[in-house]
């Protein structure tokens, strides 16, 4: 029955304790909705035929409901709504109160990736490893704009809000890999801000933790550098950073906001620059690309025309990657300081 309804409603598989609870309410609500729509619809259709107009200018009886009827109209929906509320709110309390023995994972959303860190253990980018059958509390925050952490198979979701921590928890019931989606619109690559939860059986989990602890530092760097796990735009930006370092951009351009031989990359994208011709331009992809290929064409005022052309030295994808990288250095969206909002102490 459960399986059948799941398929019928296109629900993803149930992989957490909360999923099972919330789905039961879902079935209840959907069936009552269907039945009542059907009942209202049937009554209406029956009335349309039974009481169709038989002659023009037909007069009708004056019918008004008795108090009893009106009472029924109020109490019937109210009864169902309150029943749903009681069940639903019980489940909501369940999902908003993590058990005391939950394991903590810190989650940070940033445009456009998820970073996970364990209080003692390793970090991860876009892949969250958790043990099965053990409650996991997520402490979620964001570095830039709002995000929302959503795992359809667990039926859990919580907004990531910059400057404060929100929390939710889950207990995965089956080992496997489940998708993480971002459900709060967060900009250009909102739809590519995907990740995975890897649920491990207890023994595999222990092995994984041991493995991670062995070379925690090494692994942490690997996780950050493991570009295959990073979604496309973020991966491009990281590649761009690498390429920029290789071809020597940083000899003349800083990324910390200080002007050097050339203008700083920090906040360059979207900034309005005055050119040596006196014209103002707003820095966009086209201008950055042109400045790499033909640096003298639109020189920013106050800087010498000393940059060599990179025409032929950079491939198309490399150029694009550098542009993406510079775009991630937009000042308003990326803050380097830590969140200053309230913080949660881990329970225990």
């Amino acid at each position, binding site marked *: 029955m459960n399986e059948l309804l799941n398929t019928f409603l296109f629900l993803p598989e149930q992989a957490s304790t909360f999923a099972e609870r919330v789905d039961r309410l879902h079935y209840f*609500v959907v069936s009552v909705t269907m039945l009542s729509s059907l009942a209202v619809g049937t009554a209406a259709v029956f009335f349309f035929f039974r009481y169709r107009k038989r002659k023009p200018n037909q007069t009708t*009886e004056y019918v008004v409901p008795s108090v009893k009827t009106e009472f029924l109209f*109020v109490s019937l929906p109210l009864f169902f709504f309150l029943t749903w509320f009681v069940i639903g709110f019980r489940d*909501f309390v369940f999902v908003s109160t993590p058990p005391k023995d939950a394991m903590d994972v810190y989650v940070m959303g940033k445009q456009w990736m998820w970073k996970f860190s364990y209080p003692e253990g390793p970090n991860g980018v876009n892949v969250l490893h958790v043990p099965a059958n053990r409650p996991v509390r997520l402490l979620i925050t964001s570095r830039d704009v709002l995000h929302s952490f959503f795992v359809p198979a667990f039926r859990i979701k919580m907004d990531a809000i910059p400057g404060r921590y929100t929390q939710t928890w889950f207990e995965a019931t089956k080992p496997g890999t489940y998708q993480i989606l971002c459900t709060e619109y967060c900009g*250009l690559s*909102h*739809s590519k801000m995907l990740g995975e939860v890897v649920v491990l059986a207890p023994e595999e989990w222990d092995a994984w933790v041991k493995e991670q602890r062995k070379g925690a530092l090494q692994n942490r760097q690997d996780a950050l550098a493991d570009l295959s796990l990073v979604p496309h735009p973020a991966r491009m930006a990281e590649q761009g950073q690498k390429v920029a370092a290789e071809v020597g951009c940083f000899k003349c351009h800083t990324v910390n906001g200080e002007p050097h031989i050339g203008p700083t990359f920090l906040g360059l994208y979207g900034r309005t620059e005055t050119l040596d011709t006196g014209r103002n331009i707003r820095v966009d992809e086209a201008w950055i690309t042109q400045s790499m290929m033909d640096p003298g064409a639109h020189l920013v005022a106050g800087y010498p025309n000393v940059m060599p052309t990179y025409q032929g030295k950079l491939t198309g994808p490399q150029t694009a990657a550098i542009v993406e990288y510079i775009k991630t250095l937009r000042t308003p969206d990326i803050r380097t300081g830590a969140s200053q909002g309230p913080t949660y102490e881990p329970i225990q």
Partner: protein
Amino acid sequence: MSPSSSIAAEPGAVPAPDEHHEHHPSYLVDGTTVKSWLLTLDHKRIGVMYLIWVLLFFLIGGIYALIVRLELLTPGPTIIDAMTYNRAFTMHGVVMIFLFMIPAIPGAFGNFMLPLMLGAKDVAFPRLNLLSLYLLLTGAFIAIWGMINGGMDTGWTFYTPYSTHTTTTVAPILFGAFIIGFSSIATGLNFIVTTHTMRAPGITWFKMPLFVWAMYATACIQVLATPVLGLVLLLVVGEHLFHFGIFDPAQGGDPVLFQHLFWFYSHPAVYIMVLPAFGVMSEVVAAFSRKNIFGYRAVAFSSLGIAFVGFFAWGHHMFVSGQSTFNAGVFAVLTMLVGVFTAIKVFNWVGTVYKGAVDFKTPFAYFCGFLYFTVFGGMTGVAFATASLDVPWHDTYFVVAHFHFIMVGATIMAFMAALHYWFPKMFGKMYHEGWGLVSAALIILGFNATFIPQFLLGNAGMPRRYYEYPERFQTLNVASTAGASLLAFGFLISAIYLTYALVYGRRAASNPWRSRGYEWMTESPPPTHNFVGPQPTYSEEPHFYVEPQKAEVPDAV
């Protein structure tokens, strides 16, 4: 218009045209210069101008919707890039909500019908009324200018801190919406005062047509909620331009506060959009089942109830924004009450048909669609309000489908029903009934085909505002896009036959539906000051279809 109109036989419906009739041309031809239209103070002409503009805005919003649906045909990029897509769905929302849904029924039909239904010669403040139209247009043009010069990619909810940091042109669009807010306040204020002071002798509060009750409730929301939105929009514009940091966490600001203030307006705004629809449908169902509304007071009070409770339900948009569990519970229960009030209306509408005499014309077809969409859309809304079901559904396509069921399924069905029901009243022409039914069927079917797959998409976990999506969602997206094409086709047919009817349609009788709504007690189209000769007397309640001799018997209660 023709004095030989057979409808004059209908007792009490139309006062017999007197001999001075020829000296009182209909409002449509009383003054034909452009100036006589653009600077008119006549509520009917203002209503017609509103109608033309909101239809244009509906077209713009609809084109954005089709772009969005086409883009979602395939999992990857289809016709546009991500930035264009993000702008397209934002513009779809902004245009549809601020330029169509909010002004549509109050602006076009409220302006036209409210004074007629109250037996008044005009609204209380005709100049303010004209001003509200031009405020709407000023705001609209500033916003559209912003869309052409860059567009905005925040989604219509303008959530901070994204909206204060994005490099797209937020300021003109938000400022446009700010001005549109004043237009909305002006309309609301005007309607409240009109209802209080302009009722003809005999029209007591409980003899007002239910459309007036609905407009009154709507107007209360417009007046009380919109200023808060105005303030919030100004703050966001200020943030975007000067980075004050009120909503910016980097400077100690609180982005969730924005959500509270935003939804304090925008949740009641949902009822600004849907209450007029309920009012229209109360008229339509009574007129086409030729019966007094079942439970008049219940329907009237439930409008006020929705307006009131609607102010205290905003927190249900933020169940997963980290608000306290207690808050969530309070907002959840209050939201349920809105569901109860809506249920009262639904039952009473069905009750109205009981022992009626149903004339299955185009407006009634829209009523059928409306009834189903309201029940289903409303019940899914209540399901959201259980708080726990909101957790998986929040910001997925389930939400998108739910509010389209209410916004399109209730409001646009009502808009179409109103357009058809009052078409002869407003223009004195008759549209083609057969095409009317065909397009109604197409619109209702197309609408179902568009949004039922979106409910399932939401169940499957597809988030909203996604440019690309995992491949497993494709089948349902294709189904939805196919449905959207059908829906667009239905609207296209309506546009064609209604335009045709406007120009070549046969002349309608003064009261082609033989309706006993108050607005039909004057000529169609009405003369400039609404009534010729003596004021009609309003001895019976609106939509009183009882045989005269039986009418003496006190009612069944």
